[in-house]
């Protein structure tokens, strides 16, 4: 099985406007794929369709060879697909470690009775979640902020915490929605290294990104969208010299 996710002829309209128009592509197992395009090209809409936050009008998506048609948005993480968000979605009432533990929610088998009565099973899984989350924080080299709350840490760290939270469930496919947005140069470089280190662990990655430098440096393959349609696909060097892409970005 060489495709981790395959997206076939996805279409989605809002009112009369086609936000995503007959888009197809796939991500190979162990690949870093970038999805780029100008603002309003439909990238995030496509992301939200993949993660089932939006319903599609037509088309199909299969993950590791199986259609995800019958799954609800909250069931995808169990299949091995997890995501981050364009606007940071950290929970301010939880500290960094707890935020990451939230990503481990489905891996914990303790039920509500275990929780209400604080039974050994609850404690066992709490410990396990804590250990795994801490391990991920250390992997991303941000374990020094585990006790801090989201409003006490710099923006660049928040992005990394979001990534940690998406990683803790040990996904096979990681979806990153504009991970470099709002980051300065050194933070972006750090992110680039982080993405490679995650990829080295065998995680396939699909990312939406505006930062061309990051995209050209880290992705194996790039899909370009404009006005809802896919206009080009190929390795970064090909995309850089593609006329369609230039036209979409810079006009004629």
């Amino acid at each position, binding site marked *: 099985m060489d495709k981790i996710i395959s997206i076939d002829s996805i279409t989605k309209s809002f009112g009369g406007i086609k936000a995503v128009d007959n888009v197809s592509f796939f991500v190979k197992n162990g690949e870093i794929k970038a999805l780029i395009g100008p603002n309003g090209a439909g990238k995030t809409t496509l992301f939200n369709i993949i*993660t*089932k*936050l939006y319903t599609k009008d037509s088309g199909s998506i299969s993950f590791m060879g199986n259609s995800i048609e019958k799954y*609800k*948005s*909250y*069931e*995808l*993480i*169990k299949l091995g697909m*997890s*995501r981050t*968000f364009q606007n940071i*979605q*950290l*929970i*301010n*009432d*939880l500290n960094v470690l*707890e935020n990451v*533990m*939230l*990503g*481990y*929610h*489905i891996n*914990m088998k*303790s039920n*509500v009775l*275990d*929780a*209400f*009565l*604080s039974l050994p099973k*609850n404690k066992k*899984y*709490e410990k396990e*979640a804590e250990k795994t989350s801490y391990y991920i924080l250390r992997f991303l080299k941000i374990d020094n902020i585990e006790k801090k709350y989201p409003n006490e840490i710099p923006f660049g760290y928040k992005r990394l915490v979001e990534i940690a*939270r*998406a990683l803790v*469930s040990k996904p096979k496919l990681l979806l990153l929605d504009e991970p470099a947005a709002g980051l300065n140069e050194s933070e972006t470089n750090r992110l680039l290294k982080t993405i490679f280190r995650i990829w080295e662990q065998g995680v396939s990655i699909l990312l939406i990104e505006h930062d061309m430098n990051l995209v050209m440096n880290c992705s194996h393959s790039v899909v370009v969208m404009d006005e809802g349609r896919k206009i080009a696909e190929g390795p970064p060097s090909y995309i850089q010299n593609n006329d369609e892409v230039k036209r979409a970005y810079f006009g004629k």
Partner: protein
Amino acid sequence: MSQKIFLLILFVVIMVFGFFVKNPFILNMMSLAALSVIVVTGLNLLLGFAGQISLGHAGFVAMGAYISAVFSVKFNINPWVAIVLAVFITSLFGAVIGYPTLKLKSHYLAMATLAIGEIIHSVVNNYVDLTGGPQGLTGIPMLSFFGFSFDSEIKFYIFVWTLTFLLILMSINLVNSRFGRAYKAIKSKENAAYAFGINVHFYKVFIFTVSVFYASLAGALYAFYLGFISPSSFGLIQSIDYVVMVVIGGMGSFFGVFFTSVILTILPNILTSLEDYWPIANGLLLILAMMFMPNGLKGLFKWIK
């Protein structure tokens, strides 16, 4: 200091207080305060942690009270069995009615829950054959436990406060588990919660049911403690009072809502001559709290982790 140690200290203080205060009037007020604490602790789980409002909780207290009382008075069922049945039926009702209702958000949810509370209230008020209507229901027997009767204020006081602390302890446990984190996510970032594998709607219905469980249990105990219930104790004003207690206590702060519900239950009983003005004071308190203390008393208990 950890929450559980503080809870234990609070428990000891309440027990010692009960043994030293001989005045039955004060003990009576404190027992009623405990019942408020139970309702408000449940509502705090729903409103403070999961971020879902209910303006109809007095209705669920009424269901717990009336169902258990009617079972006991009209059908001669053992009071304890009546309480268990009433709590079970009311919680089931909460789950069934919560399923469609909790698909609504914010204002719409507030309106729907308000309507549920009002419907329960008017059923109780008008189904005179069973409930006695506006006249109330009398002759509810006293609780006894294998021949040990709760015939003095202090006995009920110890029983009800012990139960209250156990229920708070359970809530603290829940909040400190993966479910607590899930509810905090639902409260502030509902869309993201799906991405962590949380079945948001199911979780909302569940915590709603838990809060209905707390409310109906308090209602049932209220009925058997006072021996008399009437619809006027379970109106919209009471529902709003519960919400006020959560808001002023600080959403999600167990100890904040604990002290607020004790104080706001006792005050109107002491200041009976000002009874007519109480709703005004209550409303004013809510406005002032919203303006100057949006986090309620939460800040006072920050040192308890």
